[in-house]
C-alpha cells in the first residue's frame, strides 16, 4: 500500500483532479460533496476500494500480488505484436526484467511500476499501428484508457466475446488494473522533466 501512497503523493493538483474525474465511476462518494473531498479523504476512499478489490479477488497484499497482476495484465496485451529484432523487442525484454524485479523483494517498486507503465504505453501505441517511440504525451493517457476500455477479452467458439474490462464490475481485477494504470501514468506526467524536444 506504500506504493500506492507514494504514487498518489506525486500527483500535482491538476493530475489529482484528473485522477478523481477519471475514477469517479469507481471511487464513488455518496455523502460528501465535491468541495469537501480533500486529497486525504480521497486517498482514504482509494484505500477502501483497493481493500475490497484485494479481498474479493483473493489478492495477497503482503506478498504484493497486485504488482504481479498489474504487470501481467499489461504485458499480455502487448506481447503478441512485438516484431523480432526490433527496438520494441528490446523494450519488451526490459519490461520482462522489470516484471521479475517487481516479484522480488528488492528494488524501488514505484520507479519500476512507472518504467513498466511507460514501456506498456509506448508498446501499446505500436500495436495500434504507430511507430515505436519512448516519448510519452499527455494525450496518451486518454487514448490508452479509451483503447483499454474497448479491448476485447479472449473469445472462443462457445463463449461470447466480452470486453476485457467489465465496466459494471467496479471491483473486478481488470478495473483495478485500469485504476492503477491511471494513477501511475498521472504520477509519471506530474514529475516529467519538461524540455522542448521531449514534449
Amino acid at each position, binding site marked *: 500500500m506504500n506504493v500506492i501512497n507514494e504514487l498518489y503523493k506525486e500527483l500535482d493538483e491538476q493530475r489529482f483532479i484528473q485522477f478523481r474525474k477519471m475514477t469517479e465511476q469507481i471511487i464513488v462518494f455518496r455523502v460528501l460533496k465535491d468541495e469537501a473531498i480533500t486529497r486525504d479523504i480521497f486517498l482514504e476512499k482509494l484505500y477502501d476500494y483497493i481493500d475490497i478489490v484485494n479481498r474479493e479477488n483473493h489478492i495477497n497484499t503482503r506478498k504484493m500480488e497486485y504488482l504481479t497482476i498489474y504487470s501481467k495484465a499489461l504485458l499480455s496485451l502487448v506481447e503478441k505484436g512485438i516484431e523480432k529484432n526490433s*527496438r520494441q523487442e*528490446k*523494450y519488451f525484454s*526490459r519490461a520482462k526484467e522489470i516484471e521479475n524485479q517487481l516479484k522480488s523483494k528488492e528494488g*524501488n517498486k514505484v*520507479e519500476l511500476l*512507472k*518504467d513498466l507503465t*511507460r*514501456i506498456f504505453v509506448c508498446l501499446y501505441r505500436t500495436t495500434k499501428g504507430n511507430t515505436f*517511440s*519512448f516519448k510519452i504525451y499527455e494525450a496518451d493517457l486518454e487514448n490508452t484508457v479509451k483503447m483499454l476500455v474497448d479491448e476485447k477479452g479472449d473469445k472462443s467458439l462457445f463463449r461470447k466475446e466480452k470486453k476485457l474490462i467489465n465496466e459494471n464490475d467496479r471491483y473486478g481485477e481488470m478495473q483495478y488494473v485500469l485504476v492503477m494504470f491511471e494513477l501511475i501514468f498521472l504520477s*509519471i506526467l506530474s*514529475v*516529467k*522533466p519538461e*524540455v*522542448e*524536444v*521531449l514534449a
Partner: protein
Amino acid sequence: MSEQIVIRTLDDLIRKFGKEFELVVRNEKNKRFKEMFQIVYSNPKADQVDEIKNTLMAVMKDFNKMNHAVVNQKEMLDQINNSLQWANKLNAFNAVVGVVDLCATVAGFVIIANKMNQMSVQITEVLNTVKNAHEDETMYKFDKVIEQHQYMLTCMNDGTEYSESKFIDLIGEEKAILNLLRKAFINNTCASRESVLQATLCMASMLASSIVYFDNQYYYNHKSGTGFYPFESNWLSSFQLLKEDDFIEALEDYFFLELKRSQYDTDLLTCSVIDHLNEYEHAVELEKSILTKLDTLEEYKKVKKMISDSVNQDLMNSIQLQEEEHPKVASILREAAMMR
C-alpha cells in the same frame, strides 16, 4: 503334408516365417484341422521373459504331444533357453544402448552448445575489437582536433594571427568529427558509448567556441557584405542533427536499456544533453547578435571586457558573501573565478 523344416534357433524361426506367423495344428489320426495359433515375436522385456518362456513351453508341449514336432523337445528347449538368454542379454544391451543414445544426444547437445558459446564469445571478441579499433580511430582524430583547437585558443589569447582559412579548416574538421561521433553513438560502433557521448558534447562545445571566435574575426573583415560566413548555417546544422530523433532515440536506449536507469532519469539525462546543445547553439546566436549591434572590433572588445569584468565582480562579491556562512560554496566559486 509339406516338407520338414529343421529349426534350431529362434533366429532360424524368424528368418523363415518372420516375426508374425500362424501355426496350424492338425489331428494326428484324421489329419483334420484342430487348432490355430497366431505367433508374434517381440523383443522380450526382462520381466516378460519367464512368461514368454512358459508360453513357449506350453506351445511346444502341445506341439510335441501331437507328434507334429519338427525337433525333439529337449533340443528345442535348449534352443529356446539359449535364445531367451540371448534375448535377455539383448534386452539389457538395448537398454544400455538406449542410455548411451540418450547420453550421446545430451553430450552432443552440450558439445554443440559449448561450440556455439565459444563461437558467440569469439564473435563478441571480434566485434569488440572492431568497436575498439573504430573508437580508437575516432578518438585519435578527436585528440588531433583538440590539439588544433588548443593552438587556436592560444593564438586568440596571445593575439597571434590565426587566419580565416585556418579557422574554416578547423571548423570543418570539428564538424566532421562531431558527425563521426554522432554516428558512432547512434550505430553503437564504439566499445564505450559513455566516452563517445562525452566526446560528442565536448566537440559540440568546441565547435560552438570556434564558430564564435571565427565570427568575431570574420564579421569586421567582411562587414561590407552580409558580415557572416555564407556557409555558417551548414556548420550550425550539426547541432540540429544532434537533436534529431535518431540521436535522441540512441540516448534513450543508452540510458534506459544499457545503463538501466529509470524512465524519469532517462528523460532527465536526455534533456540535459539537449540542454547543453541548446546552450552551445544559443551562445553562437548571442555572439552574432552582439556583433551586429557593435560597429567596430574595438567597440566589441570593449563591451566583451566590460561583460567579463562585471561577471568577475559578481563572482568576487558572491565569494565574500559565502566566505563566512558557506565556506565550501565560496571555494567552488573561487575555483570558477580562477578558471575564467
